[in-house]
């Protein structure tokens, strides 16, 4: 995992923050990542308010970047701890950080990273209906079956789009054959 110099620098800046505040800082960071808190928490906390704001900003952004990069690279708590040890971060802090990371990284991954990927509409459901056409105002004695197919597609933001089309028996047969081929392709893959 690679980090920019400024991010690594933020780790050494930690030394300037009193140890008593470290835990609170970590709660803030993971609170923000889990979307349970935001930066206004800083105002509410006596100890965090007292820290120089430039310093706090640098450390805060550096730590958040480290956590997110770790998640992107699929590090577990142990490998993160190992990585941080090599960077001269204060040992006690490394321990606290990796423990908190270990408890929360799955959740953070779900919340942030998997919902911001590049995304086509996703198929989530299919409905079908079979009708028998008797006549219309233009032509009588039609006497043919018709299928109405309704696909539910979900966009990235959760909105559902419905795709409707009709087909006759032959077209449905072709469709089923095509899909069966597709399903078979996956089976031969693994």
């Amino acid at each position, binding site marked *: 995992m690679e980090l920019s110099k400024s991010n690594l620098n933020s780790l050494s800046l930690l030394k300037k923050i009193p140890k008593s505040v470290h835990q609170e800082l970590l709660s803030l960071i993971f609170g923000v990542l889990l979307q349970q808190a935001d930066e206004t928490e800083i105002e509410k906390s006596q100890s965090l308010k007292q820290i120089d704001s430039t310093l706090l900003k640098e450390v805060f952004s550096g730590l958040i970047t480290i956590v997110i990069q770790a998640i992107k690279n699929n590090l577990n708590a142990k490998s993160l701890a190992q990585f941080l040890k090599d960077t001269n971060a204060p040992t006690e802090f490394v321990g606290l950080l990796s423990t908190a990371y270990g408890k929360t990284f799955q959740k953070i991954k779900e919340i*942030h990273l998997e919902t911001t990927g590049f995304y086509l509409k996703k198929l*989530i459901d*299919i409905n079908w209906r079979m009708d028998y056409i008797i006549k219309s105002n233009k032509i*009588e004695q039609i006497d043919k079956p018709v299928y109405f197919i309704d696909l539910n597609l979900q966009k990235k933001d959760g909105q559902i789009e419905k*795709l409707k*089309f009709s087909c006759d028996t032959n077209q449905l047969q072709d469709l089923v054959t095509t899909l069966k081929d597709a399903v078979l392709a996956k089976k031969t893959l693994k």
Partner: protein
Amino acid sequence: MVIIYFNNEQKEDLQFLQELSFEVGSKIVQVSIDFFKGNYNPKLLQNVSTKLNLPQLKVERCVYALSYLFTESSKLSLSKSDFLESVNAISPTKEIEECLLESYQKNREEMRRILSEMSLKLPSIDSLQWRLDVQISSRRTSNEAKPVYLLKLKTSDNRTVWFQADYNELESMTNQLEIALKESKSQHYKRIKKYIK
């Protein structure tokens, strides 16, 4: 037995055919068939009228009445006897009658096809293309190995929809459509088909 009824105006227009020689009459019948198929050309009507030395308005109205005859008979899929019975309303000569019947029988299938195109329908499926990919990484996550299907569906109203699906969804979609297909061979469907006929 199904018969087409003409109103008095239409009867009059069709009577016009009687006054013509067979050749001329059949030409007009041909024009009305083309008219139905969509080749309506007002200039053509003009040319035909002048060439045959006939008043254009009468020719036009005759063509419209004939189109009505052919439209209704194709729509109802009239049998030969029903068609002749309907045509009898204007008491045509034997030759005109034969000419009309021949045109009807020759063009009936195509006319029914045109009518069903004009009927109410939802856009139908043109094609479905698929591609199986394995998603490896993206800007925010790496080290994945998720199989994902890319699908492109084209419908008859020229819409192309792209979407993705994972294996489970695709399999369940296939199963559902297979069930749908089996319905067309089920007892229930066969019974309904029999009762409606």
